[in-house]
């Protein structure tokens, strides 16, 4: 694994306030935003055993994150810090229209 080269891993967590949970439209917005970053980004529902690639819409949907659950985010890479901040903001602001 290459994580030594880029050094630090950034993390964040955020509550999913979207009324229907992580369903189609939020999942599409989240993966679109994640793809704007170079960093490897993973997410999971707090405490879930597996981390999921934030750039895979099929996996994000299958994660079945419910309304009110907490989403953990971690990223490694040159723009990891900005990636975590952007994703936390997208989820916390309930996937506003006009967001990617």
């Amino acid at each position, binding site marked *: 694994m290459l994580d030594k080269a880029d050094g630090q891993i950034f993390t964040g967590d955020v509550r999913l306030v979207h009324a229907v949970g992580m369903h189609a439209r939020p999942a599409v917005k989240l993966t679109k935003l994640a793809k704007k970053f170079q960093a490897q980004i993973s997410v999971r529902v707090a405490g879930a055993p597996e981390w999921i690639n934030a750039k895979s819409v099929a996996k994000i*949907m*299958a994660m079945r994150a419910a309304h*009110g659950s907490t989403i953990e985010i971690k990223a490694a890479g040159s723009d990891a810090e900005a990636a975590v901040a952007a994703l936390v903001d997208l989820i916390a602001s309930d996937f506003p229209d006009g967001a990617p």
Partner: protein
Amino acid sequence: MQGGAAGLAYRGRTASIGFAHGPFVRVDAGSGGERVAGTLVEEALALRNAIDTASGQIADLAASAGGEAAQILEFQVALLEDEDLIEAIFASIGEGSPADVAWRSTLDAHIADYNSAPDDYLKARSSDLADLRDRVMHILRGDQGPRLKIPSGGVVCADDLPPSRFLEIDWSGGGGLALLRGSPTSHVAMLARARGIPMVVQLGAIPDTGTTALLDGEGATLELDPSAEQVRVFEKRRDNHRKSRASARAILRRPTASWRGERIRLLINIQRVEDLEHADAQYADGIGLMRTEFLLSGRSDLPDEETQFQAYDAVLRWAGQRPVTIRTFDAGGDKPVPGFTLDGEPNPFLGVRGLRLCLARPEIFTIQLGALARAAVHGNLKVMFPMVTSADELEAGRKLFADVVQRLQADGIAAMLPELGIMVEVPAAALAVASFKASFFSIGSNDLAQYVLACDRSNGALAPLMDPLHPAVLELIARTADHGRRAAISVSLCGDMAGDPRCLPALLNCGLRELSVNASALAQIKQTIDRLSSGGGVG
């Protein structure tokens, strides 16, 4: 009812209201021909090209459809751009699978996963995946020619219909959609409602052949090769629906409903926050019943205070100055919740349910009360307890609530005790209504009728006995309304009766002046009150 020459009639579930009379068009997801696999490289290239072609087709569809349809299709485009998903398929081709087999088996596995989900939303999304699967399969197999041309105004019948096929059909001449399976919460149902195309789902088995069809999205029926008499009756229903809808929409926009000079307050029932998105919800005088059980479903643990607060706060913000009545958890009975309700009760409808259960589980109940106390600061909140039998239960709930408020305030958190009322659904509560120190009463006519008539409302064999207009039920409603009038306490009714035009004259005559119905029934109920007020019948 039907004469010997009558055609066949089938009943399903309503997904979109409206009427269609036209040619019967049976559509099937044709599997196309077999294809011959090439080398590994050729197969990978074939899939790559098919994905690109599919992407382009979907983008064109989205551009021409616009709006909500475009957003729905965006999910399919995102799937085609999902490298994890696509790479797994190419890996499988690399191991020797033909392109179509690799594509199909991967998509099928995802579809099965969605279908195994406990929530209906994810299940409904599996038809988007199936749509994408079939589109790419068609391209891989070379059946790219125009798909079956559907005559304008036809009643399209399919097992299920994916959203992109719906959008490929020309609906400009009307028509309707009859699905053997399908779901009212599917994307295609949303599209049909948005376009005003009648749609009935879950029709079960129906013949493949037929020439003419009548589809009634209101009664959820499909009639094949109807007799002249069937057509006549259908056209009459359609005509009534048209007239009634036009005048109901006009009446809905009037500021208030009144009957014999008295104002009738019309509120709405909501099951979840999204119900407020219904176009007619804005015309309600407030929310007469917000159920909170949705917070308990589709999750492995119980919701914390913050999660609940967000939901209550969202509804209060929507309502502004208008009143919002939130009912505390009504679990138990026919609504079991793992980790909350009791298992193995021999007769759960007469068991530990509603407020009884909440008082037995204060560690869960106080979390909800905490969220409500915080939300109360932000709007016109009223809280009601379900399934109350004696005045002591109301007081026990009030005491618990007051303690929660005090604790929050001691921690410097803004909180207050909202107005407290009860559901009147246990006959004992209706008979002894004066013994309750409640700020308001809301009659839960479904349970009240079930308990007064001793009929399980889910037991179809008892349907003829399960009459909400039975004099005993009306007597209890009238007593409750009468008590409210004398003691100046508001009394509303939030059961199915309130949304049933046939029950309205009786409810108004019982003295009720506040009714709470689903947003979809609001226009019709307001119109019926208007008609009754001007001396007309139920219509």
